[in-house]
């Protein structure tokens, strides 16, 4: 897959770049960063394992039809609220999230509701939070970040309503 390959090249290229800078600062800097990074990796592996293997089971018990049903046609602020909940509850990665948004748009869902859905999905999608954010970030930060993000899907929907786009 070329997209995956590109990501790997960019990723390992960045690692090599910052590694080179560290090496120029001296061997000890390089060695201690390598040790630090490997420890972090060992530390994070069990969490990622729980996240990756576990989220498959969580996704399997949430029927996608329910989420599509929530994103009904143009329904005002109640529709925005259900869109936000649906966005957070959508299992899976970007293909699933955006496909549900596209279906809702085609099925007559209001653009502000779909904007709220996509923004809420970006901010809260539980699978990404469980799989990536909690393992890597301090838990206190993750909950704080999620809590202060709550108003923003609503604000995005309000802006969309105000400017009448998309």
């Amino acid at each position, binding site marked *: 897959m070329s997209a995956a390959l590109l*990501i790997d090249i960019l990723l390992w290229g960045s690692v090599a770049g910052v590694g080179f800078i560290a090496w120029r600062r001296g061997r000890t800097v390089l060695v201690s960063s390598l040790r630090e990074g490997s420890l972090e990796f060992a530390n994070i592996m069990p969490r990622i394992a729980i996240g990756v*293997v576990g*989220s498959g*089971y969580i996704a399997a018990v949430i029927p996608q*039809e329910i989420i599509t049903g929530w994103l009904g046609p143009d329904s005002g602020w109640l529709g925005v609220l259900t869109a936000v909940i649906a966005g957070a509850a959508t299992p899976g990665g970007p293909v*699933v999230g955006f496909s549900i948004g596209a279906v809702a748009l085609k099925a007559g869902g209001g653009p502000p509701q779909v904007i709220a859905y996509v923004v809420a999905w970006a901010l809260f999608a539980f699978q990404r939070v469980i799989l990536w954010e909690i393992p890597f970030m301090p838990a206190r930060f993750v909950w704080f970040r999620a809590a202060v993000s709550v*108003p923003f899907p609503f604000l*995005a929907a309000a802006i969309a309503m105000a400017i009448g*786009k998309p």
Partner: protein
Amino acid sequence: MSDAPLKDPPPADDAAEAESPPGRVRKPIGWSMISILVLVLVCAALVYRRDGADGVIEILTHDLSLFGGILPRVLAGCLLGAFIAEILPHEKVSRSLGPKSGLKGLLIGTAFGAILPGGPFTAYPVAAALLTVGADFGATIALVVSWTLIGYGRAVAWELPIMGTEFTLWRIVISLPLPVLAGAFGRFVYARVYPNGAPE
């Protein structure tokens, strides 16, 4: 029937869009991970009741192979985070992204989040590394929110082809102010929740 669409694309996508450096200082398994583990076990039991052992094993093998594929990227993300934490001067980070960095700090966080290459395996490790070397919650929130909302990676790879150009562009335009607002709101709340600084 909801099985196939759920299991297949989602994990692969997550894999494709993750990347970032690691944070330090963390208990190996905290309450968040324990709650997730409980949730996972409950869901696995539900899958077992619905689909039997075959269903459970099918998901397990699929996700284990996904896990194997992700590991090298996680390692890269961890190394990236460790190098960044090591080579970034801490005083400079706390000046540019710390609690007193003002609007400029939020804008730097937003810009950084928007240009970060890769997926979650880069964004979260980098954010965690910045947090450990002196960035405050506000600037880090701006970075994370900017990465999820206006980062070009996901928009180009997934949103444009699926949602169409017009929707995607307007969605991004509408999202532009959100990272700075989220970071500012985060700082406002943080100062009130933790008036004496971070609890340890």
